[in-house]
């Protein structure tokens, strides 16, 4: 199960992902990111602090969200990566394309 907590900030939309971002949640995340981009948010920040677990489907949805945001002239950033999420990003080497930011504020500023 996953819950998306939205926090609209001046710089962009922050979405906290609470629970497991896996095969069961991946399509919901794609929808959430697409909606934020369609609503005109140039920057989407995924706060992964409350994310207990991520799998390759969840990661695929984040990569898809990054492409969606960039195709619209915006960006998607991830913040507060730790634990299992950090391990998986490292194993897949996706931390090279999805550079983790140490906090939501740093991600909003683009200040890694």
């Amino acid at each position, binding site marked *: 199960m996953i819950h998306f907590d939205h926090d609209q900030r001046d710089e962009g939309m922050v979405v906290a992902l609470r629970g497991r971002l896996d*095969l069961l949640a991946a399509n919901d995340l794609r929808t959430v990111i697409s909606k934020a981009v369609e609503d005109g948010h140039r920057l989407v920040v995924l706060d992964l602090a409350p994310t207990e*677990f991520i799998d*390759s489907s969840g990661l*695929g*949805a984040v990569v898809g969200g990054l492409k969606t945001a960039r195709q619209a002239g915006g960006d998607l950033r991830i913040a507060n990566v730790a634990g*299992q999420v950090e*391990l998986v990003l490292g194993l*897949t*080497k*996706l931390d090279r394309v999805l550079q983790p930011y140490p906090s939501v504020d740093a991600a909003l500023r683009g200040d890694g």
Partner: protein
Amino acid sequence: MAEHRRTFEGPAEPALLDAVHEELAALWRQGPEVGEADRMLFETALAEVVANVASYSRSGTRVSLELAVLDDRLDADLVDDSSALPGDIVEGASMGDADAEHGRGLALAAAALDELTYRRRDGRNHWRLSRLRQRAD
């Protein structure tokens, strides 16, 4: 030898993932203490294999799973009665391009384990996952 086992059966469908996470949580609670990195990586690998089975099995497929915490390693044996898969499905797995949105699951599972094998035997698919436990110094 100190060891702790759990067995589980269920239908091959995405909801099986939630059950597997619950089984692992119970295993960690009941068994000997297992290091955090070992738990995280084993759970990562098992979830990928289960997701693969749940996504690609024919309707009505049943899955049985045996989990074991041993002194030196963590094992999972997963058997399902769906159609045969390519024999080199594990060896052929790759992380793919950085912008790929699908297809890196089994490569991730293999990277998180010391052993990941797939065999077709007796009309069933057999997956074996094993991770050597890190020693606390």
